[in-house]
C-alpha cells in the first residue's frame, strides 16, 4: 500500500508540543469534548455506535453499545474507569499514546464520562508505568488548571473529577472485574458476572470500563465524524489500530494502520522487515494470549473477523515475531510461566493447570521430556480451556495448543534428542547433568 495512512491516534506523534495541554489545544485538542458536551448524551452514544468503533482492549465489543448499557437514574453515582493496566505481553500502544499525547486519551475519557453520566473517572495505571503515570498526573493537573476537569468541563456546567490510581504489578488486573476489585482495595481477583460492571461495577454502582486506546480514538470521531471513521478499514472492524510490533524485526515499534492490514504490509512497510533478513517462523496477532500463527498467515487481514477465521484472535494487536532461530518450545514454556506467575489463584484449572503445564514444558525444554508428555499437554490444554473462572487460563492455552498444532515436530525433537536443538543444552546433547543456572517456574 502506498497511499497515505489515515492517522487517527498517532497524527501528532512527531510533534512534541502536543505533550502539554497548551500545545494539544493549539492543535485542536479538546475540540471533540467541546462538541460532545453540546450534544445530548444519547446523541453522543449514537454517534459512537455509528462509527462502529470496537473496543481495543482485546474483546472487541462495540464501544457505543457498551456505553449504552450503562443505566441512568439508578440513584447511584456512575463511574468511568480507564484501563491503563496494559500488561499483555507484546503490547505497548497504550503506553506510547500516554507518553506522547496524554490529553488525547484524557479527552476521550471525558467524552465517555459525559456520555454515560459519570462525574468521577478513575484511571487505573499499571504500577510499572512509573513515568507514564507521572505524565498522566501532570496532564490531569494541567486539565484541572485549564478548566477541562473540575466543576464545569470547559465551562459547560458538567462536573468531572479524575483520580489516578496505580496498580502494583498484577497482569490479572487488566481483566475488568479484577481491575474493579483491585481498585476497591481488595485482591485483584475477578468477580462473578452477573452482575455486570455496567450495572453493578465499581462500588456496586454503574460503571463503564474502556481501554486507553479505545478512549483515545474517540476525540477524532467527534472532530472528523463517525462516518469518516466507519469508512476506514473493513466494515465490521472499522478504523485504525495501533499494532505493537516486537521481537525479531528490524524496527520494533507502534504502527498505526487501518484495520485489515496484513502482517506482510506491517513488516515490509513499517517494521523494516525481519531482523537480519531471517525467515518468519511464528507470530502472535494479538499478544501472547492469542494462538500463534505462521508464515502461512502473512496475508491474513488483521481485523477481528479475519483473524478469528484464521484460528486466532486479534486481541490487543500485539505482534510478537519469531524467526527460524527461535525455539518454540522455550517460547511456549516462557509464556506459560508468565501465566502461572500471573494466575490469581482463585480457580482450580488455572492455578493448578498452569503450574503443571509449565513444569512439563520445562522438563521438555531441558531435555527430560517423555513421549507421553505430548498427549498429556494436548489433554491438559483441553481441560483448562473455557473451564476456568476467567479468560487468563484461556490465554495460557493459546500458546500451548497453537505451538503443538504447528510445531509438534519440534517438541518431538526435544524429547527424542533429550535436549534443545536451539540452545544446545540437555542431557542428550551434552551428556551431562541438568545445567545449572536456568530458572524455571514462577
Amino acid at each position, binding site marked *: 500500500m502506498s497511499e497515505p495512512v489515515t492517522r487517527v491516534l498517532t497524527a501528532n506523534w512527531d510533534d512534541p508540543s502536543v505533550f502539554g495541554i497548551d500545545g494539544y489545544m493549539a492543535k485542536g485538542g479538546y475540540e471533540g469534548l467541546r462538541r460532545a458536551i453540546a450534544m445530548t448524551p444519547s446523541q453522543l452514544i449514537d454517534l459512537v455506535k455509528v462509527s462502529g468503533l470496537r473496543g481495543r482492549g482485546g474483546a472487541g465489543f462495540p464501544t457505543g453499545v457498551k456505553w449504552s448499557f450503562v443505566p441512568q437514574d439508578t440513584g447511584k453515582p456512575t463511574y468511568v474507569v480507564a484501563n491503563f493496566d496494559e500488561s499483555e505481553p507484546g503490547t*505497548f500502544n497504550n503506553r506510547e499514546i500516554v507518553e506522547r499525547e496524554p490529553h488525547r486519551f484524557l479527552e476521550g475519557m471525558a467524552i465517555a464520562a459525559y456520555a454515560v453520566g459519570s462525574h468521577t473517572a478513575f484511571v487505573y495505571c499499571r504500577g510499572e508505568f512509573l513515568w507514564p503515570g507521572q505524565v498522566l498526573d501532570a496532564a490531569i493537573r494541567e486539565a484541572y488548571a485549564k478548566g477541562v476537569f473540575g466543576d464545569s468541563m470547559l465551562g459547560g456546567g458538567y462536573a468531572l473529577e479524575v483520580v489516578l490510581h496505580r496498580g502494583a504489578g498484577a497482569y490479572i488486573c487488566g481483566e475488568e472485574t479484577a481491575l474493579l476489585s483491585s481498585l476497591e482495595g481488595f485482591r485483584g481477583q475477578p468477580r462473578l458476572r452477573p452482575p455486570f460492571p455496567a450495572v453493578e461495577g465499581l462500588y456496586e454502582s454503574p460503571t463503564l470500563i474502556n481501554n486507553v486506546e479505545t478512549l483515545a480514538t474517540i476525540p477524532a470521531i467527534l472532530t472528523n465524524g463517525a462516518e469518516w471513521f466507519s469508512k476506514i478499514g473493513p466494515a465490521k472492524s472499522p478504523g485504525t489500530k495501533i499494532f505493537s510490533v516486537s521481537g525479531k524485526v528490524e524496527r520494533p515499534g507502534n504502527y498505526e494502520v487501518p484495520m485489515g492490514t496484513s502482517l506482510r504490509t506491517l513488516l515490509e512497510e513499517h517494521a523494516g522487515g525481519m531482523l537480519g533478513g531471517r525467515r518468519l517462523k511464528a507470530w502472535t496477532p494479538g499478544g501472547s494470549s492469542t494462538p500463534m500463527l505462521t508464515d502461512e498467515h502473512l496475508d491474513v487481514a488483521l481485523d477481528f473477523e479475519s483473524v478469528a477465521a484464521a484460528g486466532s484472535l486479534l486481541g490487543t494487536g500485539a505482534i510478537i515475531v519469531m524467526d527460524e532461530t527461535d525455539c518454540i518450545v522455550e517460547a511456549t514454556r516462557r509464556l506459560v510461566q508468565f501465566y502461572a506467575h500471573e494466575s490469581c489463584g482463585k480457580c482450580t484449572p488455572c492455578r493448578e493447570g498452569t503450574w503443571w503445564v509449565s513444569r512439563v514444558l520445562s522438563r521438555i525444554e531441558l531435555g527430560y521430556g517423555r513421549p507421553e508428555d505430548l498427549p498429556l499437554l494436548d489433554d491438559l490444554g483441553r481441560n483448562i480451556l473455557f473451564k476456568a473462572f476467567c479468560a487468563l487460563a484461556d490465554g495460557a492455552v493459546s500458546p500451548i495448543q497453537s505451538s503443538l498444532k504447528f510445531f509438534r515436530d519440534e517438541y518431538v525433537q526435544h524429547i527424542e534428542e533429550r535436549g534443545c536443538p536451539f540452545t544446545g543444552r540437555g542431557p542428550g546433547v551434552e551428556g551431562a547433568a541438568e545445567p545449572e543456572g536456568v530458572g524455571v517456574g514462577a
Partner: protein
Amino acid sequence: MGVLSPELLEVAEAIKARYPTGRERSAVMPLLYLVQSVEGSLTREGLREVAELLGRTTAEVEAVATFYTMLRTRRTGIHVVAVCTNLSCALRGANAVFEAAHEAAGIAHGEETSEDGLITVHEEECLGACDAAPVVQLDFANHDRVDPERMHELVAAVLAGEIPAPSRGTAPNDFKHASRILAGVEESS
C-alpha cells in the same frame, strides 16, 4: 503509630480523601506504597499501620500486599533492578542480560538481594516497552535496549552511588523514592 511521621499521616488522610466517602478501602494500595517508601519494604509494623488507618485487620491488608509484585514484603535492596525476560525481550537476548545483572550485583542464583542490601535483582514480566527490548527497570525507571555490557555498566554505576539517566522521564533516587512517587505523593512537573 510508628512508621508514618505526623506529616505523612496527614498525607495518608489526603490519600484516603481521593476516594468517595465510605470507600477509603481503595486507598490501601497507595497507602502501602507510602509505608514502603519510608521503610524500603513492607514490614509487620507498616502493614499494621495501614490496617489501622483503614480500620481493617492486618490480615486483610497483608492479603492485598502479598498479591502484588511491586509491594514487597521480602527483604529488598535500596535499589531494585527488574529485567524483563518475557517473550519479546527474551527474543532479543534478555536472559543473558538477567545473568549479567546477577553477576554484576554479585547475587547468587536463587537469591534476590545482594548481601550488602544495596541491590535486588529479579525477573520481570512484560513491562509494556517491547519496542526497546531488552528492557530493564531500575527503580521502575526504564532503560531501553540493554545488553549484558550495558547491564554491567548500569549496576556498576548504581554501586558507585550514581543513578544513570533513564531512557524516558527522570530517575527516582532509589526504590523508596519510587514508592513515594507511586503513592501519588510527589507532584510531577
